């Protein structure tokens, strides 16, 4: 099964999310109340690590495990990044979670967050259904 490696990458990432406490509703409130540097430190370090990694991949033409060249498609701008971004931000502070942390909160034992996840799936579905009518 070629997907097992992604399951394992997810296990690693899930452990990091919990130990970094970035899935904590408390940490999210601190971040948006500007009372702690923790979340800014985590996200800032992650972005710097990501930038350096991608530069190294490009500079040294690093390939995938199966020998394919690594390609990352550019992100296209749409108004959704503004409207959708604001809506997600509101939900982020309320739930203390983005999509990854939703899975992690459930995994660590807050089973009621499964309701939040089902609702997030419903939100994605409704977006898909009305996408054509929204400003893009």
């Amino acid at each position, binding site marked *: 099964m070629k997907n097992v490696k*992604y399951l*394992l*990458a*997810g*296990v*690693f*990432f*899930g*452990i990091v*999310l919990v130990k*970094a406490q*970035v899935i904590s*509703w*408390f940490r999210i*409130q601190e*971040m*948006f*109340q500007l*009372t702690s540097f923790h979340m800014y*430190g985590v*996200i800032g370090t*992650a*972005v710097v*690590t*990501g930038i350096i*990694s991608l530069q190294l*991949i490009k500079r040294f033409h*690093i390939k*995938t495990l*199966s020998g394919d060249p690594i390609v*990352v*498609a550019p*992100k296209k*701008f749409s108004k*959704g990044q503004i409207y959708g*971004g604001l809506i*997600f*931000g509101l*939900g982020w*502070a309320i*739930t203390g979670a*983005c999509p*990854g942390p*939703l*899975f*992690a909160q459930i*995994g660590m*034992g*807050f089973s*009621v967050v499964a*309701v939040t996840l*089902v*609702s*997030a*799936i*419903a*939100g*994605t579905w*409704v*977006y898909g259904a009305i996408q054509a009518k929204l400003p893009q």
Partner: protein
Amino acid sequence: MQLLKFIQQPWHWSVSGLLIGLTVPVLLILGNKVFGISSSLRHICAACFPANITFFKYDWKKESWNLFFAAGILLGAFIAGHYLQDGQDTQVAAATRERLASYGIHDYRALLPPEIFSWQQLFTWKGLIFFVIGGFMIGFGTRYAGGCTSGHSIMGLSNLQWPSLVATVCFMAGGFASANLFIPLIFKWLH
């Protein structure tokens, strides 16, 4: 045992950030996969409830790695939550504790307050706002924005994409408005 004790402490932001950032090259090297988790919600819709909607008509099986990754997060969090915690209260800044006390939140034993995140709250106004409406905004907002904190704020910014910077600024703006205007109002109204 010393090592286990060491791991069980909360991790410093620099270690945490480094490991989260390394997920970007790890997924690329494993198989050209672009880090991003909100897409998993779209694949679930495409797999279970496509309902003839154009947005969900694609070969989601080709993207199934993303669902395995999400399942892994759940499993990893289970392991960390059950075996890698030191049992101490979550350390939260005094100013935030004071504000949360005014919301009626006093329990810091876990990473989430049980005053909100428990099944007893599900069929209350709190449950409606914090689970149902909050969750809906995550799913709708991330898909409309074309990504979430992982896809835009970490992957997109790592690849120096300006649309991801726009998205990240809006995530933060929404979060500030929510935490400083709406959440205080919600608790005022609930009490």
